[in-house]
């Protein structure tokens, strides 16, 4: 295992350092064996938070994103983190104090399914970079290498209260490639937008799209059984690849393998091996209940984990199974009927999944929907209520923040307003499940990145500069 290789090296170095303090020098330790490994993060984030002022918001109703509500609460943002939250917090000298009486504060919204940057606006063919539709399996491609950082959509998402988003390849392929978590903070490169420390995902797809795309070319897969067979073969190949690396690593640690004995890196299989090693999370586009069940069986066969089913319009049919498997569902509030596999979509889906004790997430998959995920959650909440499922609004906010953070492997860093986590915060003009509510302020890592009342705190992408309508409130 690649991870183990690093651990072994670290232990060897620590032993060497400790040895220097001993009075009687032992024989010099053998140099650690040179072990080749696939790099974990060769394109690291270069995001740096913008300057954050110590800020205290008081008088607000707070939905903390973890399911808690504080009426007339206070929160202090300090050093880019949530420093204190509760009925009362300390107000340091020089802090910016915002009276939010009658207003609402929530954890920032996280969209686990976006194509901003890879299918940017304007949606011209030259910008169509989301599907490497040249083979059913393209796990070697990374969505971040398609992201256009000047997509105007990032500014709209920010204005909708988004503080992190996961950009995925499309669903033309069974294996679409790696997804990347970004912050809606404009950068000159995608590296400057990457969420530090967020794991990669592998976008997978089942159902109609892959079989249609390749079936139309008279290639495999042209059927659902073809989808599964093709995917199983690839998982088998990935398992063999991992075995070669594990074997090489063991031999290298034992000093019986030279660096030139390391297996040739296959970028596609690197991604798959990352999944098998638990380092890369599977985000699986899948609509129908029976197909999700098939994917679960495939994941068991090859010993990997599906983190989240996306779209999942039939999760309500297998909510108990999803709970038992610990798999999240990322869903729309009311999209249905636009393609055969969405025929059984219902408005109660999200509430039913939640009610079964499974992990529910509201996602967009849409450059418009991402601007109003609070509204989607609101509709889902109401649909559940009409079915007799009463979810408090502060609980429903977990669908927008903590649950997607879990689904992205970043819940230790963001997703709820807990002390020590990132100050990713939205101040709303009204109860945020109301159609009349809008974000007034959005903080990312404690920095005020959006202010509805201050044009200097509203970004304009390069593309929109000098174009008709620039400066108009969008």
């Amino acid at each position, binding site marked *: 295992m690649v991870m183990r290789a690093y651990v072994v090296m670290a232990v060897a170095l620590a032993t060497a350092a400790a040895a220097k303090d001993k009075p009687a020098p032992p024989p010099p330790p053998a140099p650690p064996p040179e072990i080749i490994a696939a790099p974990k993060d060769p394109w690291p984030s270069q995001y740096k938070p913008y300057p954050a002022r110590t800020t205290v918001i008081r008088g607000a109703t707070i939905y903390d994103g973890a399911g808690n509500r504080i009426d007339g609460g206070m929160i202090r943002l300090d050093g880019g983190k949530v420093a204190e939250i509760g009925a009362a917090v300390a107000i340091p000298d020089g802090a910016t104090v915002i009276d939010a009486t009658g207003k609402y504060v929530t954890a920032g919204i996280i969209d686990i399914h976006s194509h901003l940057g890879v299918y940017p606006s304007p949606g011209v063919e030259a910008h169509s970079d989301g599907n490497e539709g040249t083979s059913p399996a393209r796990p070697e491609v990374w969505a971040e290498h398609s992201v256009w950082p000047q997509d105007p*959509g990032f500014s709209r998402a920010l204005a909708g209260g988004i503080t992190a988003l996961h950009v995925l390849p499309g669903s033309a392929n069974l294996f679409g490639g790696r997804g990347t978590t970004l912050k809606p903070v404009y950068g000159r490169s995608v590296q400057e937008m990457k969420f530090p420390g967020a794991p990669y995902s592998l976008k997978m797809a089942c159902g109609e799209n892959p079989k249609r795309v390749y079936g139309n070319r008279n290639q495999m897969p042209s059927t659902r059984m073809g989808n599964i067979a093709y995917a199983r073969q690839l998982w088998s190949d990935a398992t063999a690849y991992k075995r070669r690396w594990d074997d090489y690593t063991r031999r290298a640690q034992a000093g019986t393998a030279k660096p030139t004995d390391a297996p040739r890196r296959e970028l596609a299989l690197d991604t798959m091996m990352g999944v098998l090693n638990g380092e890369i999370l599977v985000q699986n586009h899948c609509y129908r209940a029976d197909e999700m069940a098939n994917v679960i069986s495939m994941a068991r066969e090859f010993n990997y984990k599906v983190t989240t089913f996306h779209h999942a319009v039939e999760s309500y049919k297998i909510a108990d199974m999803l709970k038992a498997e610990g798999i999240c569902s990322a869903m729309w509030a009311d999209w249905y009927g636009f393609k055969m596999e969405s025929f*059984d979509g219902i408005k109660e889906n999200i509430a039913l999944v939640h009610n079964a004790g499974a992990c529910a997430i509201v996602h*967009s998959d849409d450059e418009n929907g991402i*601007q109003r995920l609070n509204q989607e959650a*609101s509709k889902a909440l109401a649909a559940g209520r009409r079915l007799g499922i009463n979810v408090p609004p502060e609980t429903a906010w977990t669908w927008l923040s903590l649950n997607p953070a879990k689904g992205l492997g970043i819940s230790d860093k963001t997703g709820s307003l807990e002390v020590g986590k990132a100050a990713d915060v939205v101040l709303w003009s009204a109860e945020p499940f109301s*159609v009349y509510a809008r974000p007034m302020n959005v903080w990312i890592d404690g920095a005020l990145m959006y202010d*509805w009342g201050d044009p200097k705190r509203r970004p304009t992408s390069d593309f929109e500069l000098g174009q008709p309508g620039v400066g108009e409130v969008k």
Partner: protein
Amino acid sequence: MKRLLLTAALAATPALAAPTAITGATLMTGQGDAVIANATLIFDNGRITAVGAGLPVPAGATVVEARGRIVTPGIIAAASDVGLSEVNGVRESNDSAARQSAFSAALDMSTAINPRSMHIPVNRLGGITRAVVVPDSASTIFGGQGAVISLSATGPTLTRARAVQYMEMGENGARLAGGSRPAAWAQLANMLAEAQRYAANPALFDRGQDSGSLAKRLDAEALGPVLDGRQALLIHVERASDISEVLKLKGRYPAMRPVLVGAREAWLVAGEIAKAGVPVITHSLYDLPDDFESLAASRNNIGHLQAAGVTVALGALGGIGGTAPFNLPAYAGNAVAQGLVPGGKGLTKGQALAAITANPARIMELADLGTLAVGKRADVVIWDGDPLELQSAPVAVYIDGVTQPMTSRQTELANRYKALGRTDLPLQYPR
């Protein structure tokens, strides 16, 4: 009394409901921002017969106590594909477009409307009572003739066949006409000239047609009602310069009733549009430069248009993912919210409701729909809260005075899967 008899006679076709009195409700009538508190709304034989605060209830009427409820006119989807397409992605169930057809303007959507579509109950549960059903253009810039339908469970479904003609200009029109905007304008000029020639003398049309003419007889015939204004001409157009060009049609064809659809950049030329008296069907949520004809898109669009005096309606238009008519009230609510943003231009609640009731009726010249007024068809919705709010829903829907079932295929699915526990038989058996 005379008036009542008159309206009853007119309404003989659609409805046979007993007189109904909704009492104690707050009425949003679709006209202006004033509401009527503690109102009584009476309808009989499918028509509204009385509206006012605390009116006496006629003897024998069915009384619907609606204290604390809000009552509105039925919502009218100003543009949609309800009943025209069952599953968009399943081609054989989708009659929205006909790319291989030899005809275009002649295509009559009323021949395809399916009253048993699953989408009709789904949208009715959202308070939608009528829809303007329009095609997509696929073989020429003209898509064909759209219909106005009722979403009533008991019918009749067709309110008005061939109510509108639909066409594309702008980028889509350019593509359909061969590759450029001038090509689209040439196609339009040619088709309308042929329509005039047909109207002048149908019998001579075939003989006089030179071999190079691109107009089919049926298409030329179908455009007659566009020229004389019997049909509104819905023109999908986005860019401000394209809109200005479309407005010139009024000068060339004085009887024509053009309606701008989409119109993302309309706010840049709002004064021109108002001066031309051309209405707009748009969406409240367009705010991205989706393409090079919508660079100036802003959610302020609709507020600017309203302020300029343009008649504005909201349609279930494309470009917004998951768009469905049942979301129209929430889209209207978003237009109100836009006015609350610093620098934002929005609508009042009354204006927003009118954009999904009175205004679409006015644009389509549906004189007996769109407001809660005496003599109108009794399309009435009783809501459990602010109708523009996300969490509100109808508790009762009346179409032509007939109370509607409050179930759909979706509610049946939800009830089937509400409890997943295993019992004596699979879930697919009735329980």
